């Protein structure tokens, strides 16, 4: 009987661990709480929610933005850029274009379905990009593995595809018909503002593919208020709130201790 009790306890612990892991993570794209291949849990970056207190000279990464920036926030970002801060916007859906316009930038993200022959993966959207110029973020980087990027227009090109790249409009993975080969820019800059048309470079599965590039952008702050990196779920929110509130943390600890204390107390009574 004793052995059976231990077995049950062990299984309960395992089941509890599985429930905890399940409840405290998410499968949302780009989420910092997504430990899967398409999350950003492994990207070493400090989360920032208030853009009004950005340290001058820092690098701020806005990754896959999906929440609009207010006029005040745009002003903070403009001031941050003017004070020498570096702003890196990684977007492949064109959601950043409004912010770019508000910042007075001519750079725009052009969503599409770029594919290239210069690749070593079967997926035509996984292909090689080539740094041009002498930007710090691509220092020492010869090639970059791109992951279904979007083209970027305007600004000074920093990263280009090979000329054997086409917009695979019909999605058949083969060039043909009205699809023509052309070199595309996927990263460009204007002063301290850099726009990268491939947010996927920062997901967990891609970090090891471009290690030098990732190293070059560190240390980096990451916007968690307007970006899909901040995507959570109610349980994660509750746990985060509990961690931030000492009283709530104490109450949770008590909830965990009470059943044990009750059990041992009952044993003594018996």
């Amino acid at each position, binding site marked *: 009987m004793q052995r059976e*009790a231990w077995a049950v306890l062990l299984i309960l612990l395992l089941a509890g661990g599985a429930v905890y892991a399940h409840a405290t993570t998410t*499968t949302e*794209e780009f989420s910092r709480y997504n430990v899967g291949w398409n999350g950003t849990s492994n990207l070493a970056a400090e989360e920032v929610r208030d853009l009004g207190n950005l340290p001058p000279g820092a690098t701020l990464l806005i990754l896959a933005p999906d929440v609009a920036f207010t006029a005040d926030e745009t002003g903070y970002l403009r001031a941050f850029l003017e004070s020498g801060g570096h702003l890196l916007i990684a977007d492949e859906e064109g959601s950043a274009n409004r912010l770019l316009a508000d910042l007075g930038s001519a750079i725009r993200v052009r969503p599409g379905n770029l594919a290239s022959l210069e690749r070593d993966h079967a997926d035509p*959207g996984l292909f090689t990009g080539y740094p041009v110029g002498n930007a710090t973020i691509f220092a020492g980087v010869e090639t970059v593995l791109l992951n279904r990027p979007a083209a970027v227009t305007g600004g000074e090109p920093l990263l280009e595809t090979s000329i054997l790249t086409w917009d695979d409009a019909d999605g058949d993975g083969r060039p043909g018909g009205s699809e023509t080969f052309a070199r595309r820019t996927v990263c460009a800059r204007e002063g301290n503002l850099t726009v990268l048309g491939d947010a996927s470079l920062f997901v967990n599965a891609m970090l090891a593919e471009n290690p030098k590039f990732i190293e070059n952008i560190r240390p980096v702050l990451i916007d968690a208020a307007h970006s899909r990196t901040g995507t959570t779920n109610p349980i994660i929110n509750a746990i985060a709130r509990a961690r931030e509130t000492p009283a709530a943390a104490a109450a949770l600890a008590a909830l965990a201790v009470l059943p044990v204390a009750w059990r041992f107390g009952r044993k003594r009574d018996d």
Partner: protein
Amino acid sequence: MNRLASHATLAAAAALVLLLLGAQAASPLLYTAENTSTGAHADPATIQKRSPGDADALVPLMDDLLGQTGTLALTIKLKDYESAERDLARYSELSRQFDRLVVTLDVSGTDIGEFQRNNRQNLDALATLLNDSRRFEELQRLEIEVLDGEQRMAIAYEGEALRQKMREGFSAYAGREPATTRIAGRYDLNTTPYQQSVEHFAEVADAADDRTGGGTTVKSPLGIAVTPAEGRYGDTLRIAGRYAGGIPDTRIEVYVDSRVAGAATLDADGTYNHPYRIGRIAAGPHLAYATAGRIYSEVATFEVLTQNTTLTLALAEVNRTAVACTGNLTTGDGLPVAGAPVLIRLDDGTLAAAETDENGTYGTVLVLPGGEHALQAEFHAAGYPLNASESPAETVQVRGEGLSPLPFVAAIAAALGTGWYLRRRRPEEEPVAAAAPVPESPREAPPAVEIAGLPPREAATVLFRALRDRLGIPGTKTPRDCALLFPAHAGFFERYERIRYAGETPTDDELRAMEAEARGGGEGAA
């Protein structure tokens, strides 16, 4: 812990874990990691790697090809035929590399494919120009050396044929320049050598025209005509004529584009007839002439028209890993295309080659990994007066290598072993399972127990056995087991345990009470 509670807890934990797994069932990550992707990105670790296929060599190769045209045309113009041969060999080799690359990279449907087709025609045109220029030089020399009137006339005819051919060749070569230059401009290629090659070609053709010798106005005794004047793949044209003054059975050689196309024999009435079947020959205008010994005919022209093709593909399973690919290549008129190369493209871009037989049927067997595959057959029509075609894509499910029997054998062995183990343990465990439902049977008659005259400890043993038998407890059970199984008789069994193992001696009263309980009359006392 209560047995029922522990089972319920385990069942609840198992259900919870299954629920969590079920929530992820739609995601293949739990059981396979292949081609994992979303709309925004793909997981590179799960995407099949492939050879880059020398894609980075494609554009430089195009540049080299354009450069080669300039060099080759210049050496032909300068009549440096030795160097021209070397340049042509180099140009041919580069063109072959380029053709392979275009097929491997699957870009025949793009402007690079158009560039490839133009380049192939340019290569043919320059190779022909080299041969014709050299032959033209030779004819000019012969024209000076040969004094015989008939021979001079034959030389003049051939010279005229060559001039006509060179003019048409230049026309076609120059006609490709705008498209080729436009495509080259898109890839930042240096078009200067190519444009110079057009100029050199023009100069060579003009020079041939300038050297028009006498005698071409003299009508040849060897007549020639091609009927009909145009045809398509598979059609048979009639190349025929009359040889005025020719001796019957004279061998007449027929040339198409300066290459021997066949031979005919002069009839008794002085005519010859050679059927020419249009096969692998480029679309466009062509020249034909005939020779009878040293007598040359005039030059006749005919045109080969292009035609659409139809390609089919059928898949059939050969075994678990092999798939038979068969199909037919026919012209728009349903005529089979014989000896034509057919490529079968797999879903990952890999190509397999096959060739049609005289019925236009091709067939090959491909060994594929397990899973679903999409295959498509392609005909690129290089050198044929036919348009390229593709079969509809077909899918096939390949079962793959069979599962190893080892895990199943191991599982069966494990199951047998478990069964054997449980069977061996059953005598001890059985009452545990049967504890609750084994009722006492008060209606049964009390067993006969006779302890009179026995020593007290032996009498106690007899009574223990009697009670055990009455309750249906197996003889392998110890008194403690019996007490656990039948708590209502725990006092009896515990007392007997002390008698049996602690060496205690029961009193007469105890024996009487035990006897009553063993007989079934002392339930209340127990």
